[in-house]
């Protein structure tokens, strides 16, 4: 069971990292789109 919790935490860390990356990328793209207008 301990192994499951370790894997769960690692998966959550990966997910949080991916989510932050996508949010930041979204903001960057929005900025570039506004520059192009």
């Amino acid at each position, binding site marked *: 069971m301990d*192994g*499951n*919790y370790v*894997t*769960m935490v690692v*998966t*959550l860390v990966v*997910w949080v990292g991916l*989510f932050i990356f*996508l*949010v930041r*990328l*979204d903001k960057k*793209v929005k900025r*570039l*789109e506004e520059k*192009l207008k």
Partner: protein
Amino acid sequence: MWWKTLIFVAMSVVIVFSFVTPAPQPQIGEASRIFYYHIPLAWICVIAFAMSMVYSIRYLKTRNIAEDDKAAEVARLGLIFCALATVTGSIFAKVTWGSFWNWDPRETSIFVLLLLYGAYFALRGAIEGEEKKAALAAAYAIFAFITVPFLIFVMPRVVPSLHPNESVVNKEMQFTMGVTVRWIFAASLVCFTLIFLWIFNLARRVSVIRRAQMEREQ
């Protein structure tokens, strides 16, 4: 922003529940938890390739280069999700069958799929001239997708396979999963689909920016 928060919370809940609830297939054991991630990845790979075919048809109809850009972006994402499905499948194979790769019909199918869409990008890279490249790639994407239902759904069921074939539904098309597993699986499928659509939206917008910059430079 609310929908991003919703995706974040929903996916986090799916991750937690996928590990704290009993394993979906007790006869396979803890390794069967990968089912909550592996199947949605394979599902998105099929959706992405289907979308690539639709955008390719639209390109051939309208000759609008933006449609070709969308077809290429969604095929690229499909290829990434296909590679992730292959990796998660290999991990499952190692734990349950003792080897990362067994040339099982489903493994062979996904390998052929990777080659098919890898060739799509090789084709795009080999042709010069925007319109010629777009037209040939669109024709290729349409023919490539015709093989997808056969490779994913038919071939692995016709040939004897090690792969669990009745994880979701049985031959009578009845759910084989318990209620909890079914809910976590459905939520995982929805979350992965939304994340895919978000990434695709970003990729599409980046390609629009790239094309606009190229046009400015010319």
